[in-house]
Each structure stands twice: as structure tokens, then as C-alpha cells.
């Protein structure tokens, strides 16, 4: 009996509500917005009156943010969907249809879809900030006709913070991760579904606050927020700190669910050796977050204490500004591995299916990901070789360069998988291969940053900017798009238009490399990052980079339109268009609301990436025994 037949017998009402969209369904989202802004102004205004200060000053803005966050959460449906019942109140109805996307919901699939939409919107705005930066750099001094130096500083700070914490940190973990985690493990939902739902609802207020920070004075520290500049360059820094702390909290709520679900909720027969490789990537990333985030989270809050409560952790007579650097980079370098480990794992999910060959050296791939997580957790201090003692330098240089060894395992596993095989190239596979190429350049150029003598020359130049864009944009965002194309049929039940998807893949690859490969040159030639004005001899290179980046940015309209049109009118997808052995592809498309209703559970008898000729199917489906 086919797997869909088994599910079909028991799905019934658990497939999800069939109600058509109505504008009234968006009411919780509208209510949350209204309550959020109202509570913000109420909190800020009352505090300003009580403290005899202005509403835009640090303390009223902080209190306003906390009130606003609580108002937003209350409006989202958190109260009736969780808090009220937790205190013994009435149960709220369960929304299984379209409305679950617009309110607090414990469905991990709805949460994941919201993550994707949020990431797209945040990427758009943070990308517009990038375009503003590149317009500025078209000429050596554009402050007369474009952004002032202060506005320029604010713009690159917002761009960096938003791209890292509102986009790259959650594009793969939030979208693909939370959608696929339970499905790949053969369970209906994650271990704490409500906490996972909350993780998404923390994102919008933090993001809005960061974007709005110029309205209360902005911040000019970049996304680092280093004191004592943080305390002396605009009240908007409190929105930066609060946004960073909120976004970190959101990430940790997701991380807790990833690790807890993997350890405690695998399908019958799914030993650790049979856990899908993508789940291993998620777990490696989540482990970093749980262990490393507290130091950085505490750093953000201590920085805030200095600003609003008069403490002197980092400033004043007892302050140690360098302590902030240690705390900040304690997580925020390993955070790079939080971004990229799930991307690595996606390569290793997609490539075996695309080549119909078993994943090469599976255990080495897992060891590689755990190795990157472990070694990578210790390397944050390499970001400030120019400000540390000579004793620490060789230690952190060696540790940083050691990360390339487990990373090499992962690359070798990917190459070994496709070696000698026939890769069936679709847009997702193409983007995966491009991401591998890009990240290779990002990784190899990173070795120069990790090397102390070279770093003294390259530190704080455009070399560094080009390097990390190769890892983040070139590695993670390419993989994000690959994941969107690969799993689009499973989420929507429709196929993506392959021509336009491939067209954009090439567009993206060409203009990405024209932008960032060329950007290494002004870096070597000594162009400092984070300056609005540069020397005239660097103009031709900057013009080239800026114009390439405009094409790169404009190109994102192609996938935006393609995905929307494909969702509305694309060809209907079959259950398993890629011939994958992964469990989610054995469910109907789109995934039903309850993915494994009682009576259609699976037993796992092998890893999901063994495509060797004659290999048995990795899952055995129980015969349907409908409970109703």
C-alpha cells in the first residue's frame, strides 16, 4: 500500500481547515501591531514624565520597548493561546486553516512559513540599506548629495544587524529547519510547540525597533555596539541592544526545541546513526547557541545597564570596555557556524537525492559538523588581534585555522557524493553547487584573516567585508534559495518555474562574484570599512562594485515574482518530484496539518540518504488502523 494511501485512510479532518482566506483572519496581526505601538508610547510617555526627561531618551525608550513587546505578544493571541490556559483558564480553539499563519500558533509548519515571509521582508529592507551604502560609495565623497557621515554610520549598522540577526540567523534554521525537523524525525511537532511559536513572535518588534532607531537618535557603532562609543553616539543604541537581546532569545527558544526534539522525539527505529544529516546540522548549530549565547546576551544587557541604570560594567571608573569585546565575540563569531552548519547539512541532504548516490562517509560528515561546532566555539577573540596581548594571538590563530579541518570533512563528503555520479541539475542543485564554490572562497580568504601577520594588514578593510559576504551571502543565502526551491513543492503543493529559477541562479552567481570578488582589491589596497569618504584612487573599483551590486540587488525581484506566481498558478507537484528518500517526501504535498496522524506512523530501518543500488527503503509504514 502506498504511503499516501495509508495516510489518506486516517487523515480526515486532521488534514487542516479548508476555509478560504478572509481579511478578518488577519485581525490578531493587526491587533498585535496596534497594541504594540500603543503600549510602546504609553510606557515611554509615562516614564518620560516620571523621570522628567524626553520620550526619545534611553530610559523611556527602553521601558517603551518592553511595554511594546508585551503589548505585541498579548495582541498576537499569546494570552488566550497559552498564558490563560497555563493559569487554569479556558482553552482556546485550535486553528488549523489559513488563520493560523496570522496569530500565535503552536503549529511548527505555520511558524516556519512565517519565518520565511519575515526573512524575505527583512532581507528586502536590509538589502535596501546595502543599496544605500553602495550609492554612497559611488563617489569618494557623497556626503553632500546622499547620506551624511552620521546617517551612513547608522545605515551600515542597521544593515549589518538586520542581515545577521533577522535574516541569516534564521533563514535556514527558521524556515527549512522548523518545517522539516519534526517531519524528518517522523513526529507531528516539536517538543515545545508553544515556545517555538513564541520564537517567531519575538522577531518583528525587535526588527522594527532596530529599523526605527534613527528616530530616537540612531547609533553609530555598527552592529558591534562597542562601548564606550555605544554610550556616546545616539540614544538609538538602546533599540540596538534590546533588539539584539530579543533576537538572541528567539534563537535560543528555537535551539532548545531542535536539541530537545532530536534527543527525545525520534520515530521508532531512528537511532542516532539514522538521524537525517540536516537534523545533525541543526543540532550542531543549536548546541552552539545554547552554550555560547548567555555570555553575549549578558553582555548586551550589561551594556544596557550602563546606559539606563548608571552601572559601570564597560564605562566609567570601574568599566572594562574590552570585556564587552570578549562577551560579544564569544557567541557572535561562533554564530557564523550557527548560520552555516545547517547550510552545509542541506547540501548533504540535496546532493545524494540529486545524484541518487549514497551520502559519502556519512559519519565523517556528522563528525565534521560537531567538530566545527566544538572548535568554532572557542575562536571569537580572533576578531581583535589588533587589541589583544601577544600571548593570546597564537592560541586564537591556531584554533581558528583548525576549524578548516572539520569543515574539510564536510566538503569531502559532498564531493565524494557527487564524484563520478550524474548530477541531475535543477535550480536547487545548481544553487547548492554555487554555494559550495562561494563558501570555499569565503573560507580560504578567512585563513588570511585568521593569520595574525596577514590580519594586521587586512584588519578593518574591505577584504574582511568581501570575505564575510562570501560566507554569509555566498554560502548561506545561496543555500537558502536552494532550500526554498527544493522544498517549495512540499510546502505549497506546486512546482517552481525552473527556467526563471535557474535564470536567477546564474544572475545571482555572476553579479555576486562581480561584486564581492572585486571587493577584495580595494581591501588589499587599504580601503577601510565603515567610512563614508575614501581616497579618490579607489573610485574606479568602488564604481564597479556598486554597479554590480545594483544588478545583484535588483535580481532578487526575479525569485520574488517567480515564487509568488508559482505558488498561485504553478504546476501541481507530485508527492516526491525529486525521488528523495527523506521522510518528508513520503507525505502528501502540501504537507497535511497533522503529518503523521494516529495509524500512519513509520518505523525507521535505515538512514534516509542511502541511495545505493538495491538498498532497502529506509522506512516501513505501519498499516492504517484508523482510530475513528
Amino acid at each position, binding site marked *: 500500500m502506498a504511503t499516501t494511501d495509508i495516510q489518506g485512510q486516517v487523515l480526515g479532518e486532521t488534514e487542516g481547515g479548508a476555509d478560504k482566506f478572509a481579511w478578518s483572519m488577519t485581525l490578531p496581526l493587526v491587533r498585535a501591531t496596534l497594541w504594540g505601538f500603543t503600549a510602546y508610547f504609553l510606557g515611554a510617555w509615562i516614564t518620560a514624565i516620571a523621570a522628567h526627561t524626553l520620550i526619545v531618551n534611553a530610559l523611556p525608550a527602553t521601558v517603551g520597548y518592553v511595554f511594546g513587546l508585551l503589548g505585541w505578544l498579548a495582541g498576537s493571541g499569546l494570552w488566550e493561546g497559552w498564558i490563560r*490556559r497555563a493559569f*487554569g483558564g479556558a482553552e482556546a480553539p485550535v486553528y488549523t486553516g489559513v488563520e493560523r499563519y496570522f496569530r500565535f500558533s503552536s503549529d511548527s509548519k505555520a511558524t516556519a512559513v512565517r519565518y520565511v515571509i519575515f526573512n524575505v521582508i527583512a532581507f528586502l529592507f536590509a538589502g535596501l540599506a546595502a543599496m544605500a551604502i553602495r550609492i554612497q560609495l559611488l563617489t569618494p565623497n557623497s556626503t553632500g548629495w546622499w547620506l551624511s557621515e552620521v546617517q551612513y554610520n547608522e545605515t551600515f549598522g542597521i544593515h549589518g544587524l538586520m542581515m545577521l540577526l533577522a535574516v541569516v540567523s534564521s533563514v535556514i534554521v527558521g524556515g527549512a529547519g522548523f518545517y522539516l525537523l519534526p517531519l524528518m524525525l517522523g513526529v507531528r*511537532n516539536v517538543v515545545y510547540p508553544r515556545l517555538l511559536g513564541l520564537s517567531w513572535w519575538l522577531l518583528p518588534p525587535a526588527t522594527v525597533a532596530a529599523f526605527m532607531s534613527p528616530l530616537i537618535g540612531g547609533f553609530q557603532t555598527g552592529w558591534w555596539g562597542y562601548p564606550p562609543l555605544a554610550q556616546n553616539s545616539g540614544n538609538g543604541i538602546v533599540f540596538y541592544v534590546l533588539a539584539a537581546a530579543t533576537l538572541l532569545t528567539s534563537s535560543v527558544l528555537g*535551539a532548545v526545541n531542535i*536539541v530537545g526534539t532530536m*534527543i*527525545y522525539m525520534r520515530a521508532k527505529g531512528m537511532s542516532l546513526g539514522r538521524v537525517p544529516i540536516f537534523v545533525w546540522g541543526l543540532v550542531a548549530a543549536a548546541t552552539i547557541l545554547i552554550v555560547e549565547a548567555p555570555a553575549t546576551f549578558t553582555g548586551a544587557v550589561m551594556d544596557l545597564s550602563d546606559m539606563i541604570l548608571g*552601572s559601570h560594567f564597560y564605562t566609567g571608573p*570601574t568599566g572594562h570596555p574590552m570585556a564587552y569585546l570578549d562577551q560579544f565575540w564569544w557567541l557572535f563569531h561562533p554564530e557564523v557556524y550557527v548560520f552555516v552548519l545547517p547550510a552545509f547539512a542541506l547540501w548533504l541532504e540535496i546532493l545524494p537525492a540529486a545524484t541518487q548516490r549514497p551520502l559519502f562517509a556519512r559519519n565523517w560528515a556528522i563528525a565534521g559538523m560537531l567538530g566545527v561546532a566544538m572548535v568554532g566555539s572557542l575562536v571569537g577573540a580572533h576578531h581583535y588581534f589588533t587589541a589583544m596581548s601577544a600571548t593570546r594571538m597564537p592560541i586564537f590563530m591556531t584554533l581558528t585555522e583548525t576549524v578548516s579541518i572539520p569543515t574539510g570533512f564536510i566538503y569531502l563528503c559532498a564531493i565524494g557524493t557527487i564524484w563520478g555520479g550524474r548530477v541531475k541539475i535543477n535550480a536547487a542543485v545548481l544553487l547548492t553547487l554555487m554555494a559550495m564554490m562561494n563558501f570555499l572562497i569565503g573560507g580560504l580568504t578567512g585563513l588570511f584573516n585568521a593569520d595574525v601577520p596577514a590580519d594586521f594588514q587586512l584588519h578593518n578593510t574591505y577584504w574582511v567585508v568581501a570575505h564575510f559576504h562570501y560566507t554569509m551571502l555566498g554560502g548561506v543565502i545561496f543555500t537558502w534559495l536552494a532550500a526554498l526551491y527544493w522544498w517549495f513543492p512540499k510546502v505549497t503543493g506546486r512546482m517552481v518555474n525552473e527556467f526563471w529559477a535557474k535564470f536567477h541562479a546564474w544572475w545571482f552567481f555572476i553579479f555576486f562574484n562581480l561584486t564581492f570578488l572585486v571587493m577584495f582589491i580595494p581591501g588589499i589596497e587599504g580601503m577601510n570599512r565603515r567610512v563614508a569618504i575614501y581616497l579618490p584612487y579607489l573610485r574606479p573599483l568602488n564604481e564597479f562594485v556598486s554597479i554590480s551590486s545594483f544588478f545583484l540587488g535588483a535580481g532578487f525581484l526575479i525569485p520574488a515574482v517567480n515564487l509568488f506566481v508559482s505558488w498561485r498558478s504553478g504546476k501541481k507537484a507530485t508527492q516526491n518530484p525529486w525521488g528523495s528518500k527523506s521522510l518528508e517526501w513520503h507525505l502528501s504535498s502540501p504537507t497535511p*496539518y497533522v503529518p503523521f496522524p494516529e495509524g500512519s506512523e513509520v518505523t525507521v530501518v535505515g538512514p534516509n540518504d542511502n541511495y545505493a543500488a538495491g538498498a532497502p527503503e529506509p522506512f516501513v509504514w505501519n498499516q492504517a488502523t484508523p482510530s475513528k
Partner: protein
Amino acid sequence: MAAENIGTLMDPASERAKRGAFFFPMLFTSIICAAWFLARFLWAGTSVPKAADFGVGVALTVLMLFSIGPMSGARTKLIRGEDAAALGRLAALLGIAVLVVVGIIATWWAVPIGTGYGGIYDITSGWILLYFVGGVLGLLASLMKGKQVLERFQSERWVAHNVLSFWGELVLLWTVFFIVFYIA
């Protein structure tokens, strides 16, 4: 199928999973809490004023150690399914938690405010206080659920177990760090 049943179906984790996975948020929050305690040493430890009065702190430590009794009792009763007795111990624990909250606020007057030391002490205490407020809310939620909808309390015993685990984490952190702090 009723919506409530779908809701239960879509929260499929077993009690073992719910309790076991709670280790991870506890680990995260413990490291943060430990960081606040350690901040006192790193930033203020060398300048503890001689006039600082730790009497309230000692009393709170004794109270925290005393709370191990009702905490363990509540857990045993939960495991045995004696919910009424478990709720009684949770209520006792709630009383202790409220006292600790009041005590922490009282310590703000026990150290000279305005000095560098006083500022660091008060702020770290303030952030630690949030943990105890969280504990109070968790205990209150379990009690109210147990009084109003016992059936739900019974089907979600893992919540009360996790609240007790969180309290145990607070006892451990407070005791270890206060003793070190006091001796130092």
C-alpha cells in the same frame, strides 16, 4: 475530530521528552544567572565596603536551603499521583519564593547605594530577581491550574515537574554563589 483533540495530537511530546528537554533552557538560564553572580566578583569584588551587611543574604540562603524540603516533597507526591498533597507543597514553596523576592529587594538597602560596589550589586541582584519572579509565576500557574482544572494539571504534570526543576536550579545557584561570595 474535535479541535481540542487536534490540539493534543499536535503536541505529541511525552512527559519524558518535556521534562528531559527542559535541561536545555535550564542550562541557558543557569549560565546567565552564574554570569550575573560572577559579575559581582569581576567588577565589584575587590571593593566590597566593610559596612556591607550580609545578614539578609545569609537568611535568604537558609530559606533557600529550607525550600528543598517542600520541593522534594512536591516532586515525590507528583510521581505518586497524589495531586492534592503536591499542590499543598507547591503552595508552601510559593510562600518561600515570595519571601525570597521580598528579601532580595530588602538587600538593596543593606549595601551602600551610590558607591561603585552598590551599583553593581543592585543591578546584578535586579537581574537575578527576575529569575525568582519567574519562579513565582511558574508556581502560581501550577497551583491555579491544579485548583481550577485538575484534569489538565494531571495530564500536564510535566509542567509542575519543570517548575520544580527550575526552583532546584535557583537553590543550587544561589547557595553555591552566595557561599562563595560570602566567603570571598
